[in-house]
């Protein structure tokens, strides 16, 4: 009945939603069923974000992918067995029990392959993922060709049907999110130490196997309970994307887990809302796309680890090297004028290193000082490579050209002492 209600909702607006509808949806005022879906999706996002952070830290994200694909034969087998026994084959608990069993079986197969062959983990995961999924698809076609239309619902486990989530699902997602939060608070340090340095953890007496089992159990829990909503192909996105996006913003485990939960919740919330407003769009995919958008924004815009920040740092370094090169050559050969671009000359002038914008402009006082310093660093490093590091003079130049620009005061002091220790006179090196 609720399903038909959700579908009738879809018929009402197929065009762009009005602002009013948008406002009602995001403030949870557009009907009980839509609310249940949005709340459940957000809670699933929290659970997936936290548990996914554990999986990411343990470098087990792909295990979750294999696990979710491996649930399909369990779902279909459970359906077949339940119909054969005369039970209600569409009962969700029975189907999810089957999903859990075959999911865990899939993970066990990965471990068996790793233990008894020399295959690497990526190959083992790929094999298990595809073979289990293949079995599931074959069984699904068997069910569809023999059983009545009552089997049609099984398709939803592959792509998900968020709109079918009910209050009970919201409560289930809420409980899992709560479990994940409690475990994150209680066992943060045990999980962290096992993920960072398993051997040390074991020597310290922390049972790494138990912690791994706990993480795996949590992955199973969130995967299986999210199957119906997001579908087994995309559920892994709820585990991988939020922590991967969060990692761009933070360098600490605690903050990673908090941000990952928030990103997961936001994706669930926005994704479910959008799909409620544009009902022909499958909510699972929209949720994943929201998470993906947050990931892309994080990847580009995060302050320290983001791509834009890195590009800016590289550009700054390149610019500094260009400035240094020009100053050094102008200092060393005042009559010779190195080829410079106009923008570089503007920059040199703005920084007060040159006296005019002309290519043949002489250096200012500060420009001379800087040029002298760069020249000296250059000579110091050259001397060090030749006299202390046993590098032939002919091989020195290519490395010198880069290093001289990044030498800080500490390194220069150490260079000087090394060169002094090797019996050379530093006075000779002054340019």
């Amino acid at each position, binding site marked *: 009945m609720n399903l038909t209600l959700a579908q009738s909702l879809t018929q009402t607006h197929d065009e762009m939603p009005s602002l009013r509808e948008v406002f009602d949806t995001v403030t949870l005022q557009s009907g009980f069923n839509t609310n249940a879906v949005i709340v459940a999706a957000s809670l699933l996002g929290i659970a997936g974000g936290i548990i996914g952070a554990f999986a990411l*830290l343990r*470098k087990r994200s792909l295990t979750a992918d294999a696990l979710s694909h491996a649930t399909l034969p369990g779902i279909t087998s459970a359906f077949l067995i339940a119909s054969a026994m005369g039970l209600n084959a569409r009962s969700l608990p029975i189907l999810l029990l089957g999903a859990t069993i075959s999911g865990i079986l899939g993970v066990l197969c990965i471990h068996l392959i790793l233990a008894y062959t*020399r295959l690497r983990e990526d190959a083992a995961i790929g094999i298990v993922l595809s073979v289990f999924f293949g079995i599931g698809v074959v069984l699904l076609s068997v069910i569809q060709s023999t059983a009545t239309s009552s089997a049609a619902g099984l398709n939803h486990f592959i792509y998900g049907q968020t709109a079918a989530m009910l209050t009970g699902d919201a409560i289930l997602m809420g409980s899992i999110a709560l479990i994940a939060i409690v475990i994150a608070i*209680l*066992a943060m*340090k*045990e999980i*962290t*130490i096992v*993920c*960072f*340095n398993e*051997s*040390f*953890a*074991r*020597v*310290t*007496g*922390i049972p790494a196997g138990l912690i791994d089992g706990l993480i795996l159990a949590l992955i199973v829990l969130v995967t299986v309970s999210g199957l119906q909503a997001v579908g087994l192909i995309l559920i892994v996105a709820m585990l991988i994307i939020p922590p991967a996006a969060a*990692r761009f913003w*933070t*360098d*600490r*485990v605690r*903050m*990673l887990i908090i941000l990952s939960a928030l990103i997961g919740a936001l994706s669930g919330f926005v994704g479910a809302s959008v799909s409620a407003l544009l009902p022909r769009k499958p909510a699972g995919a929209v949720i994943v796309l929201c998470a993906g958008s947050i990931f892309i924004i994080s990847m580009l815009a995060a302050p320290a680890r983001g791509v834009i920040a890195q590009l800016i740092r590289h550009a700054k370094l390149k610019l500094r090297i260009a400035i240094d090169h020009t100053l050094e050559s102008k200092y060393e050969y005042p009559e010779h004028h190195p080829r410079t671009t106009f923008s570089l000359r503007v920059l040199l002038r703005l920084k007060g290193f040159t006296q005019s914008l002309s290519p043949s402009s002489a250096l200012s006082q500060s420009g001379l000082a800087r040029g002298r310093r760069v020249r000296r660093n250059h000579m110091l490093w050259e001397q060090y490579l030749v006299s202390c590091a046993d590098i032939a003079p002919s091989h020195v130049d290519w490395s010198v050209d880069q290093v001289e620009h990044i030498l800080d005061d500490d390194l220069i002091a150490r260079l000087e002492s090394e060169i002094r220790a090797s019996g050379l006179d530093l006075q000779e090196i002054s340019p």
Partner: protein
Amino acid sequence: MTLLQTQPPNQPRSTLDARPEHSADNPLSVHAMTVAYHRKPVLWDVDYDAPPGSLVAIVGPNGAGKSTFIKACLGLIPAAAGTVEFWGKPYKHARAKIGYVPQRETVDWDFPVSALDVVCMGLYRKIGWFKPIRKAHKAAAMESLDRMGLADYANRQIAQLSGGQQQRVFLARALVQNADLYFMDEPFAGVDAATEAAIIEVLRELRSQGKTVIVVHHDLQTVPTYFDHAMLLNMRIVAAGPVSEIFTDENLNKTYGGRLTLLAEASEAVARAQQGQPQSSNK
């Protein structure tokens, strides 16, 4: 059935107590330890007693089983045969008195933790399950970092540290464990001179407190200056004892020379046989 079971199972195991040099005071006693990786034996029948209050270097060529020895002692990899005791007790009952510095390359240094977080890990056992890290713990970790000259780097993410600094973080973590016996896996590998000096200073301090440190070491030249005892290892123990006695050209030749080809070939043969491959006949 296989070469791994060097002794028939029904023969009573000669106990550690039967050995004259063995004493329950020894922080570490290893008896008849054989270890295999992927069914290929890498350590054969190792007997070793570490004297209390000494710095011990484990020396040997690549693939000699140095790290394997440490890991097998600590139960990180299973030994195919043999016994390991710490002060006469099995590992489980001695854990609180044992510290460990793993090889630096074995961890992901991009992991989102600070230097202080890593050092605090040395206290997790003391803190206990599910209990939070308190200010006193952080203070102890800070003190240890300070001792390694890293107080200013406590809140840096560990990827922002140099290799030597990372190694010192590991040392600091071992120090807060406040153990009586330390295992260190190549702490001097790829570190700068300042770090090497800092580590050796710590080692000497530990020895002066009566503690024993067992170190996998690569640089033969520094063994006599840094260590009192040494264990020359190449799949088996070539020699073990005070550096002044065993660090002879003859022993070093035995350890690094080509005389062990037979043992290495036997290992290969065992591995091949276990994998069901035919014996190579052209040798």
